[in-house]
């Protein structure tokens, strides 16, 4: 077999993934913490006040990265769901289902911080406009995926059913993204652009992008951590799980993330 394919197959085997994820975990969290601290210093201390919004705009440094993550994690979940449905790869099922709670958390933070930003700037906590409503629908999609996954007894069937729901829900992603251009909304348009110059000062842009990177690493850490636990549950009867369980018992109270 082609060595690359062989490596891929090996990575997809639960015990190998479990060990590798355990080794990567502390690095993901460590990098996220360092990047997050730098971004916070840049955003809360170094960046100047906004000429219109004063210091209230500083919510942007968590609101926008969380909003980006809510879409990114959904796409990640849907891609893994697709692989799980087509090729029946157990690891993809696990990754898709492990991503759902993390995505829901980011979506929740995005909605709450948006509300806390909307009150002083728009004079209202909530309004049923296109961007806010479609983001709320995204949260419900995440909750639907989690709920469906919990509701079916057979774990692998549950994962495939939930993956299918995740795939259907992907139509909502462009709606969230383009809602500010398609409809007249209270929400402001994009200030950071991939194509063309961003409508934001460089002193505000770099903390924002750094925080976006930090949330990516935090997601990676949480995802790996969750996938590891799910694999232990899924493969409960296998020999490698037995070894992990006995090793964890032999060393009482190990640091939760360090042990492999």
């Amino acid at each position, binding site marked *: 077999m082609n060595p690359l394919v062989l490596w891929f197959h090996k990575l997809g085997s639960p015990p190998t993934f479990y060990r590798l994820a355990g080794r990567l975990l502390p690095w993901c969290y460590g990098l996220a913490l360092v990047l997050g601290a730098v971004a916070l210093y840049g955003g809360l201390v170094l960046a100047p006040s906004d000429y219109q919004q*004063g210091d209230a705009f500083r919510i942007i440094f968590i609101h926008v990265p969380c909003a980006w993550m809510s879409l990114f994690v959904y796409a990640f979940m849907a891609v893994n769901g697709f692989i799980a449905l087509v090729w029946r790869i157990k690891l993809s099922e696990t990754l898709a289902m492990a991503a759902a709670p993390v995505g829901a*958390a980011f979506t929740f*933070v995005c909605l709450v911080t948006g509300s*806390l930003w909307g009150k*002083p700037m728009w004079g209202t906590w909530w309004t049923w406009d296109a961007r806010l409503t479609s983001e709320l629908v995204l949260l419900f999609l995440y909750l639907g995926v989690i709920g469906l996954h919990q509701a079916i007894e057979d774990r692998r069937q549950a994962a495939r059913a939930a993956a299918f729901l995740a795939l259907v829900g992907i139509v909502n992603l462009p709606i969230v993204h383009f809602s500010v251009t398609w409809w007249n909304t209270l929400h402001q348009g994009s200030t950071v652009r991939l194509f063309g110059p961003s409508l934001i000062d460089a002193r505000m842009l770099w903390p924002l992008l750094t925080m976006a990177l930090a949330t990516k690493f935090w997601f990676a850490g949480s995802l790996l951590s969750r996938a590891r636990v799910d694999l*232990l549950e899924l493969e409960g009867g296998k020999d490698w799980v*037995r070894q992990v369980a006995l090793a964890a018992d032999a060393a009482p109270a190990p640091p939760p993330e360090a042990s492999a």
Partner: protein
Amino acid sequence: MSDFFAMGGYGAYVWASYAVFFVVLAAEAVLPPLKRRRVLAGLRGKWKRAQRREGSAP
């Protein structure tokens, strides 16, 4: 320093936002290792019970 915490009068909104962000993401990191410990303890209990059943069988 108090200027920093006041955030130009928007302190409550800004710090509440950051508090939600930190609490949710911290929970995101803390919960899976706790569940891992619970799952492993549950598996060990299951094996022990199975062993005892085998041992007591005539």
